[in-house]
């Protein structure tokens, strides 16, 4: 479970990414109420932990990991908002702050119970935004599943291993030790490079890629740490 301040940052970035926008340092700063330099520092930490990918002048996007961590907090936050307005009848203007406090101490069990009691709400009360779906596959909640798919479509970063043979992607970032990353870049896997998966060895073996006109084999463990934006061939 990420620390409270990390959760707050993830939430803030989620807020922008959800609308398909990158989260800019200045905007995050004003949203959380801290100075831009400390935001920058935190962003670096979060990037190191693999929660997000940061492009200068453009802003930050959550990675798969960051997205699910943020989703978890967001979901608690918005369920709490619903609970506070619908059941307790508290004023809409006040629920956001209250939910911000409560979300960090809400256990998964309570979250689930809230969802049941509220009859699987779709949106939160104050701004009508969607409540992120729960992390479980709820078969009774078709809408929930559908929504999950819709939300995910906005975000295309996947590890290289998620591509099928014949598919292509553009490298967004590489996570890993200095030597390995340096080596991958030396072999031509720099940011923005288009790669095509040519073959995949069975039993979790390596991938064969076409990179800059050369065929390369990359071990599965490394390939998992190369994130690409899926591209149409």
């Amino acid at each position, binding site marked *: 479970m990420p620390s409270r301040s990390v959760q707050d940052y993830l939430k803030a970035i989620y807020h922008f990414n959800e609308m398909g926008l990158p989260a800019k340092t200045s905007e995050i700063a004003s949203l959380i109420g801290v100075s831009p330099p400390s935001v920058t520092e935190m962003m670096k930490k979060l990037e190191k932990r693999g929660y997000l990918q940061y492009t200068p002048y453009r802003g930050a996007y959550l990675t798969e990991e960051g997205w699910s961590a943020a989703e978890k907090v967001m979901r608690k936050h918005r369920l709490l908002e619903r609970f506070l307005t619908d059941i307790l009848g508290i004023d809409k203007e006040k629920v956001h702050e209250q939910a911000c406090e409560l979300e960090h101490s809400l256990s998964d069990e309570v979250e689930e119970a809230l969802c049941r009691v509220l009859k699987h709400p779709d949106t939160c009360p104050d701004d009508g935004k969607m409540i992120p779906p729960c992390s479980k596959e709820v078969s009774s909640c078709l809408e929930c599943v559908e929504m999950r798919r819709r939300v995910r479509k906005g975000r295309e970063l996947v590890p290289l291993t998620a591509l099928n043979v014949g598919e292509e992607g553009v490298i967004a970032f590489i996570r890993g030790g200095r*030597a390995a990353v340096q080596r991958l870049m*030396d072999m031509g896997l720099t*940011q923005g490079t288009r790669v095509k998966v040519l073959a995949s*060895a*069975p039993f979790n*073996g390596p991938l064969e890629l076409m990179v800059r*006109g050369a065929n390369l084999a*990359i071990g599965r463990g*490394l390939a998992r740490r190369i994130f690409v934006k899926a591209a149409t061939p």
Partner: protein
Amino acid sequence: MSQETSSKGEDDKKRRHIRIALAGNANVGKSVIFNQLTGLHQHIGNWPGKTVERAEGTLSYRGYTIDVLDLPGIYSLSTYSIEEVISRQYIAVEKPDVVVNVVDASVLERNLFFTIQLLEIAPRMVIALNQIDMAEKKGIKVNHEKLEKLLGVPVVPTIAPRNVGIEELVEKVIEVYEKDVRPLFTLKCGPEVEARIEKLSALLREIKSPYPPRWMAIKLLEGDEEVEKIVYSEKPELEQVVKALGAEIEEIHGHSVSSVIASERYNLANRIARECTEQLIRKRRGFIEKLEEATVHPVLGYMIMAVVVAALFYGVFRFGDFVTALLESLFDMVKVAYDGWFGTGFLATLIWDGIIEGLIAGITIALPYIIPFYIALSILEDSGYLPRIAFLMDAAMHKIGLHGKGFIPLILGFGCNVPAILGCRIMETDRERLICGFVASLIPCAATSVIVMGLVATYMGTNWAIALYILDFAIILLLGRIAFKAAPGEPVGLIMEMPAYRRPTISVTASKTWFRLQDFIFTAFPIMIAGNFVIQISSLLGLLDVAEKVMSPVIVGWLGLPAATGITLTFGILRKELTLILLASLMGTTNFAAVMTPVQMFVYSTVVMVYIPCIATIAVLIKEFGYKRTLIITLVEIGFAILLGGVLYRILGILF
């Protein structure tokens, strides 16, 4: 450095001698060019203190003597592998007169990434645009004149196997040397990075170093440890400056400096490559491409691999067995003649057993397997099939802490550990070579298998023999894992090129085999002969009886074996077969069941399997990894064998 014009006579003499270095990516046909240039005038050895092959040769052309050094195939001039460090040090410190950058026309962009880095060190340079025929088959036509103009370095198109362009290349090299043409090329990064590189290189001008300041500035920003050492030992205060500048670049780009600079280099390489290549209309997919696909196919690929590996194994060992048998009977006849000639007195025996026997062991055991192995390895390397095997076996090899390339040496280890350990060179980093060599030395070789068959399988049944093998593989798995954890350095997953298939050339295969063999004989034979000498002389002087007494607490007390096995195990160091042959002669019977219990046989065989690499293996371990590491490997294996044997003796004692 030494280019100042001196007096005429001396100058002429100097001018006739040119030192050139071949540099380039792996699989670009560099060794073929090397071979075309030097023919039989070459020497293969090691870089001092390194497990990296150093191939040198000479060529005479129009009154010039040209020394050619073939640098290892690398993709960058960073510090990822020992090869990279060796190459850049050689280019910057030894300053060859001309660097010939061999470039693969069919993968121009990636090759130019390396060319750009070479240009940053700014030696005199000529580019050999090689494999233009293969590029055209792939539908790529490179305009070499344009490339020459864009890089400001002479470019000579070549097709090395057919000797096309090689003479022109030599002419160009001489011309560049005579006219002292230096490339005027700099990688210009984006303004925000460029400003900081310049600021830093201005501060580096006074540093005494073979590297140009600008190059050092870039390397410092990239976080290069070697350059950091050079610079910070002289000007420690610069560390803060570098850190600050690096942080600024990272702040702007949001990525590490090395990533920013690698991208800049590749962007440039991409631009140049695009400008001077022309995409031809492709023919239908050729046979080569179909073969490339089939050999990595999840089903077909493994079937092809099984056939190739089986053929390789069978070929190497059938040939080896045949020649060994032939040579042994030959030497037996020589021995008879020798005895007839000199008699069997002390001195005659000492000379034969102590000196000649060691030489014979080397010739009959090692050489017959090593020659076909070197040929096979060279063909596997040059054809481009080796990476495919690595690709298919990577997942399985990860279980013992190696990646796919380690499969070939390990498979060969089942025949003989000597070629297996030599084969560990195909691993890239020192760390992986060491783990691979260690694991290979544990693989039960053909001789060990003979002992298991002769003792355990014969007297205890096949199931026990199988059990022993399973036990051995478990040990390999365990020790391999421990080595993986214990070996220094960062483990790196598989990153390798899958080169297009090529026909290996006979001349390259033959000369590689021949010169590698020479190197082997010179380094490994003396160790084998010396080792043999020490043991034989101790035997003649009766020291072995003392040794038997000294060892008996371990052999008899801990392992529960007959005291005589102390001697057989000692001789087993020379060759493992002796542990069985001598046992028979010392015990005075070949019916081992009469003198040993089943438990003793099992324990004995286990100890023989693990306890020590044979003298030939120790010799190659020393050749590849040095005395210290060989000593550690040997001690670990002896210690582990004793521990395991004692434990087995006690466990099996309960069962029987």
